[in-house]
């Protein structure tokens, strides 16, 4: 936030140049050619502006292109037209400034928790000494409370622990944007709530910008500053954006007791199950 005011102050001297927001999704279209020679449009003109340090949740039915959208932010896919810009620079390929936490953990099974985290560190921070790099890995294991499990392989870890390692691996590279694709979808409800609270704590400490896909309205309302709701595919767009005004730091009971909570929840439910009800299945 301070950075932004500084930037806008410095740009006063050049009044024609407007300062671009942190992350801009600019008229993004993604379509694929079909076998019959036609075109299948997944996303049709998505516009979104995300401020630095913001926590944004994406919600929508399966197949609405949420993952496709985030894949173009992470750089795994390239847009058919339009672009995504991070700090004014168009995104063309994956990079350590945008780290992804996948739903199915995607830890390398032949490496310990520590080695999984260290792998990225030694690849990205090439100018740091070995002991510095090891210290970063240990710090991030401690951040997610897994110091004791450092030398365990993923097979010996529970689902929640694996996802903690993934979050630690992502944060260790000091990304500007953290992208989470349904990170807690495969976890049991209790572990899920624990990890949501931990994620909020880490986010508050790191002030990293978070984009997260979820299917869970309550999760989105508890975590996010804004909830982006997408229309159904094909040719999905952003349907509506909910501002979530609850004060931070949030506690679950406080949020749930707020009368606004049910208003927002009803709004989201109405959007997902009434106006854009999933007619397939």
């Amino acid at each position: 936030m301070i950075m932004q005011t500084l930037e806008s102050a410095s740009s006063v001297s050049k009044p024609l140049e407007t300062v671009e927001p942190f992350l801009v999704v600019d008229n993004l279209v993604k379509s694929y050619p079909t076998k019959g020679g036609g075109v299948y449009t997944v996303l049709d003109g998505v516009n979104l502006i995300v401020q630095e340090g913001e926590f944004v949740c994406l919600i929508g039915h399966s197949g609405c292109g949420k993952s496709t959208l985030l894949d173009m932010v992470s750089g795994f896919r390239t847009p058919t037209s339009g672009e995504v810009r991070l700090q004014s620079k168009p995104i063309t390929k994956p990079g350590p400034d945008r780290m992804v936490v996948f739903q199915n953990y995607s830890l390398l099974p032949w490496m310990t928790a520590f080695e999984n985290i260290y792998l990225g560190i030694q690849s990205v921070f090439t100018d740091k000494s070995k002991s510095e790099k090891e210290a970063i890995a240990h710090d991030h294991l401690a951040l997610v409370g897994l110091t004791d499990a450092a030398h365990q392989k993923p097979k010996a870890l529970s689902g929640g622990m694996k996802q903690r390692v993934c979050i630690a691996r992502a944060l260790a590279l000091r990304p500007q944007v953290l992208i989470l694709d349904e990170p807690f979808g495969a976890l049991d409800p209790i572990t899920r709530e624990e990890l949501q609270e931990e994620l909020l704590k880490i986010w508050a400490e790191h002030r990293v910008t978070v984009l997260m896909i979820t299917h869970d309205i309550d999760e989105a309302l508890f975590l996010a500053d804004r909830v982006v709701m997408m229309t159904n595919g094909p040719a999905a767009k952003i349907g509506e954006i909910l501002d979530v005004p609850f004060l931070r730091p949030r506690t679950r009971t406080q949020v749930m007791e707020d009368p606004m909570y049910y208003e927002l929840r009803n709004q989201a439910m109405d959007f997902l199950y009434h106006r854009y009800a999933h007619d397939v299945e």
Partner: protein
Amino acid sequence: MTANVSSPPGAAFVSRLLPIVGQKLKNFVPTVIAIAIFLLIWQLLYSDPTASLPNPAKVFEETWDPLIIDPFFQGEGVDQGLFWQLFESLKRVAIGYTLAAVVGISLGVLIGVSVMMFRALDPIFQVLRTIPPLAWLPISLAALKEAQPAAIFVIFITAIWPIIINTGVGVQNIPQDYNNVAKVLQLSRLDYFFKVLLPATVPYIFTGLKIAIGLSWLAIVAAEMLTGGVGIGFFIWDSYNSGNLSEVILAVVYVGIVGLLLDRLITLIASMVVPEEQK
């Protein structure tokens, strides 16, 4: 065990080991019975001294001295003990198989990572792999001019296909998640190769290597029958030509046992090399 103070040291260990050994022996009993029945039928069918094949007792009697009791016997030229015959064959297999493993894994990785290479080479490999080992021998002899390298080439060309194909399939089957992780973490090519590709592919490589060792042993025996010299293949052919069928049968039994041991050896190496999580 603490109560049994009076028993001599080691007794506890032996008493624990005995049931394991006993169990192994028990598993072996049906096999022993099956072999005994087989030998008995063979003995009865070929008990007539003028029969076309020698019976087990005759085989045993004719090969006992010196072949069975002195496998390390060294004579003139090809007149060597069975150990030396097998040793020469194994040496050829070791060279041909090692070459096949190195070239095969490299080519397998190549067709695994590059779709273009896969499209270009896979159809060729699919045709070449169906060619029987011995069909390569004339080409090999003509090209290399000498029997020894020609035999090794036959091993190489027989063993390489399953290694290439399995390695290629292994590389193509690396989970997309691992490749995505490598992309986000911006792993260098070298890091990707040694920390992602190889550990993920190793089980497939060993499947290929295991099929290949069996094939190469099949091929060496056949190749040596034609190329001659010291080696178990030519020993079989030579014994046949001199009408000594007992020697042929003994050598065939040895070939089978060595083939089994080679297979077990690769399985053992695989169990040590393949990461625990990948089994």
